C-alpha cells in the first residue's frame, strides 16, 4: 500500500507542482474536457503530448507509478482485445469503410479501420490516465481545497475534499491494524486457501470495526471545528493561498485555449459536419 501511495501531502519542488491550486484544477478540467469530447487523433495526439510533458516535468519516481502504469496498460489492452472479440467490425462501422488487411477466420477480418479505431481509443484512455496522474502528483489536499474555493465552489465542499483526503492515511492504517489483529486471531485471508464467498464474509468482518472506529472520530473533529467557529460566515480564507504569478497566468491561458479548442470542435461536429460526438476522423476519408 505505502510504496504505491501517490497522493502528496507536501507541495513539490517542480514548476508544475508550485502552481496555484486553482490553475492546476483549471488545467486538469480543460484537459479532461478536451480528451472527452474528441475522437480525432490529431487533437488527442496534441492533448496526449501536452499531458505527457506535464507529467515528465514533475520527474515522477518510476518506482511509485510503475504498478499503476502497468495496471492501466494491461487493463486497456485487454479491453481493446475484448472489443475486437465482441465486434470485429467496430472500427469499420464507426468510420464507414472497410479495408481488409488479412483475416484471422472468416468471422474476424482485421481491417485497417478497426486497428486505427482501437489505437485511437487506446490513445484516448492513455491521455486520460496521464492527465490524471500529473494532477495527482502535483496537488496536495489543501491546495485542492483552496483551488476549488477560488473557482467558486462552496467552501463546505472544499472542506470535504481536504478533510477527506487528509484522513485517508489514518483509515488505511486502521484497516491494516484491524486486518492484522483479525489475522492474529486466526482468520485466513490468503487468496489461495480461502474461497471467494468466504473472503467476502471476512472482508465484511473487517469492515464492521473499521466503520465504527472511523465514524467515532466524526464527533471529535466536528466539535473541534465548531469550537473554532466553522461555518459561521459565508466565506473563508486559506493559509496556503498563493497569489497568481506569471507562470500561473500562462498555464491558465493554455487551459482557456484548450477549452476553446474543445468548444470549437464540439460546435463543428454538432452543427456543421453533423458527425456527432462519436465521429472518428480517418486519414483519406
Amino acid at each position, binding site marked *: 500500500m505505502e510504496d504505491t501511495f501517490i497522493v502528496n501531502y507536501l507541495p513539490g519542488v517542480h514548476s508544475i507542482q508550485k502552481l496555484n491550486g486553482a490553475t492546476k484544477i483549471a488545467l486538469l478540467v480543460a484537459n479532461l474536457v478536451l480528451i472527452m469530447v474528441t475522437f480525432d487523433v490529431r487533437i488527442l495526439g496534441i492533448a496526449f503530448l501536452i499531458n505527457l510533458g506535464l507529467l515528465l516535468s514533475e520527474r515522477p519516481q518510476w518506482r511509485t507509478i510503475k504498478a*499503476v502504469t502497468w495496471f492501466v496498460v494491461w487493463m486497456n489492452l485487454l479491453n481493446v482485445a475484448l*472489443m475486437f472479440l465482441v465486434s470485429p467490425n467496430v472500427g469499420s462501422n464507426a468510420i464507414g469503410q472497410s479495408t481488409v488487411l488479412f483475416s484471422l477466420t472468416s468471422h474476424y477480418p482485421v481491417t485497417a479501420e478497426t486497428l486505427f479505431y482501437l489505437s485511437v481509443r487506446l490513445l484516448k484512455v492513455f491521455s486520460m490516465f496521464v492527465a490524471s496522474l500529473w494532477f495527482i502528483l502535483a496537488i496536495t489536499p489543501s491546495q485542492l481545497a483552496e483551488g476549488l474555493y477560488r473557482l467558486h465552489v462552496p467552501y463546505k465542499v472544499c472542506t470535504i475534499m481536504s478533510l477527506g483526503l487528509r484522513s485517508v492515511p489514518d483509515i488505511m492504517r486502521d484497516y491494516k491494524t484491524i486486518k492484522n489483529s483479525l489475522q492474529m486471531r486466526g482468520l485466513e485471508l490468503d487468496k489461495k486457501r480461502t474461497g471467494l464467498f468466504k473472503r467476502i464474509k471476512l472482508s465484511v468482518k473487517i469492515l464492521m470495526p473499521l466503520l465504527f472506529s472511523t465514524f467515532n472520530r466524526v464527533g471529535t473533529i466536528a466539535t473541534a471545528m465548531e469550537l473554532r467557529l466553522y461555518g459561521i460566515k459565508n466565506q473563508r480564507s486559506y493559509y496556503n493561498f498563493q497569489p497568481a504569478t506569471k507562470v500561473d497566468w500562462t498555464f491558465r491561458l493554455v487551459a482557456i485555449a484548450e477549452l476553446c479548442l474543445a468548444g470549437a470542435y464540439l460546435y463543428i461536429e454538432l452543427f456543421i459536419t453533423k458527425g456527432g460526438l462519436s465521429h472518428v476522423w480517418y486519414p483519406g476519408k
Partner: protein
Amino acid sequence: MAANEIRESVFSKLVGRWSTQSIVTVAIGSALFGVLLDFVGIPVYTNTKLSVAYLVPVFVGALYGPLPAGFIGLFGNFFADLIAGSGFWPEWWIGNFIAAFVIGLLPLYGARIEDGIFTKKHAAIFTITSLIGLLVAFGFIAPFLNTLFYGGEKLINFAQGYIAVITDGAITIIAGIPLLFSLAKRNRKNSHLTKE
C-alpha cells in the same frame, strides 16, 4: 397547510441533516469509501471489483439521509480515483452519486435507524429500491455516459455496468441488511425504554 408540512418534511428528509457533523461525516465517509473501493476488493472483471464499499452509503444513509450518502458516492469515487491514480472517470462518479443516493433513501420510507426502527418490511423496500437505484445508475447512466465520452463497444461498457449492478447489489443486500438490523438494535438499547 398540512400538505405543505408533509412536502417540507419530505424535502428535509431528502436533503438530510446538514451541520458541521454531517460535513465531517461525508468527508470521512468518502475517504473510507475510496479506500475500500481501492484496496478491499476482489477483482471480477476489467474495471469491476467485488467491493464492500457500498456498506458506507448504507450506514450513512441510515443515519444522515440520502443526500450525504449520495455525496459519499460522488466524492468517495473521486477519492478512489485519486488514490489509485488510474485515471478520472467522471461518469462513474455520477453513477455512484445516484446509486448511493437511492440506497440512502432509508428515512424516506420510515426506517429510522437512530430510533431503532427497522423492520422486515423496510428491509424489503430497501432491497427493491437499492436494486432499482443500482440498475439505473450502473445499468444505464454510467455506461451510457461512458460510451458517449470514450466511445468503444457499447456491449462491453454495458456488460461492465451490469456486473457492477450484480456485485454491488449483492454486497448491499447480503451484508447491508444485517448491518442495518444490528445498527437498529444497538440504537434501540440506547432508548432505555422497556415494553411492559
